[in-house]
């Protein structure tokens, strides 16, 4: 309902024209690339961390879990500021720079911003998913000669499938939709670090409502298709 109402306002000619503009193509492409990259990175980190939080006991675990969850509560603006302070601080900046990486005002910054936005969600979901997997199944695999890592790959991961899909849906959606964090860390410069939500915002600021709505619609279509594919994958896997 709320979604459908967005389609009511714009004129169709406008949309058709805007959708093929260079800006839109640029921002769509950048959105997809960064969104997919970040989602993959998020999952690569969330799976082992979520597993460790679910299976192992250690001192201060409650604290660690809380700190990991906290960024979810931050407004995007705050999270962006935190990341800026972190990556913009002279020490880390120099270390990263010597490795040829600079997050501030760059495309890599978009990925970093999306990564840190989505990671806490993915970790939290994976932790609760692994909680539901019987550790005895993992033990059986180990008693048949598989190491802990192989067991994780062969048993824990396939069994966590439903939770992984949930994590991926949320991570990807979060990555592609986040605006404030990217804006602060990566700058949100026209045709440089411009992803779909920024196109939307920029065009509202320009007063170009047609373009803004078009980017909103494109964002919706992209996320619809991606999520639909994920959700189908859950059933067929």
């Amino acid at each position, binding site marked *: 309902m709320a979604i459908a109402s967005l389609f009511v306002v714009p004129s169709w000619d406008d949309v058709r024209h805007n959708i093929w503009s260079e800006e839109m193509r640029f921002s769509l492409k950048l959105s997809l690339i960064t969104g997919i990259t970040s989602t993959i990175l998020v999952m690569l980190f969330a799976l082992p961390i979520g597993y460790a939080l679910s299976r192992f006991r250690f001192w201060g675990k409650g604290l660690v879990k809380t700190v990991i969850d906290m960024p979810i509560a931050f407004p995007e603006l705050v999270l962006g500021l935190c990341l800026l302070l972190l990556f913009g601080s002279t020490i880390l900046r120099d270390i990263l720079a010597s490795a040829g990486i600079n997050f501030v005002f760059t495309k890599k910054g978009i990925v970093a911003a999306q990564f840190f936005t989505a990671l806490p969600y993915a970790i939290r979901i994976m932790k609760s998913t692994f909680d539901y997997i019987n550790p005895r199944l993992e033990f059986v695999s180990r008693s048949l000669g598989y190491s802990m890592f192989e067991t994780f790959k062969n048993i824990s991961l396939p069994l966590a499938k439903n939770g992984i899909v949930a994590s991926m849906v949320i991570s990807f959606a979060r990555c592609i939709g986040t605006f404030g964090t990217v804006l602060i860390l990566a700058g949100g410069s*026209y045709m440089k670090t411009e992803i779909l939500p920024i196109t939307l915002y920029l065009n509202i*600021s320009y007063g170009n409502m047609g373009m803004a709505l078009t980017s909103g619609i494109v964002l919706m279509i992209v996320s619809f298709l991606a999520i639909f594919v994920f959700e189908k994958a859950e059933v067929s896997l």
Partner: protein
Amino acid sequence: FSGAGLIKPMEELKINFEKSHSIVIDIHYGSSGEIFAGVAAGQPCDVLIPGAEKYTDDALKNGWVLENTVTKMVLHIPVIAVPKGNPAKIKGLMDLTRPNVRVAIGDPKAPAIGRVAKQILIRGGIWEKVKSNISVYAPTVNQLLIYAALSQVDAAIIWGDLVTWAEGKGKLEIIPIEKEYNIIKTIPTAICTGALHKNTAIQFNEYITSPEGMKIWEKWGFEPCAE
């Protein structure tokens, strides 16, 4: 509806007006872009006070505000904000051309300050040179403030009233822009086409542009328009 940067004077004006007219006023703050989007989406709004004339102009074009109600109110003076201690030793506009100075300006197409900054630089004849120093075109004014306060850039061109607070707290320093280059903008106010309380809205607009209102504006670092 009001630009978020105007919150301090607007709150004071609101309280005074409410007292003298014994009515209640709701003021919604947001960035100019956001409140503009709100009006576009049909949010019920009587008075629109964005950060720059561009928005009232656009709104006028779309027929969202009443033509003869657009009034210029106060001045918006661009300045150069530099981080505390002025690490790049900026003394004036021309210093922005020095190599390795990191400069942030607003996106020339998005916030009003962006367009103004570009015009200032062009008027100073240094646009092309400064361009290579610009590390970010920020779509929101807040970013400029944050980047300067956090030393992510050595200089940012920004509204003067925005940094009076931060300057007071010693986070930023202000370098005035030379008069000959500076372009001073005004903050407008307008009454929306869809206004539900048109008469009150007119009264409010009259009040905030009255000499009494102007005193409050001045108190918070805005200069009245010399009409």
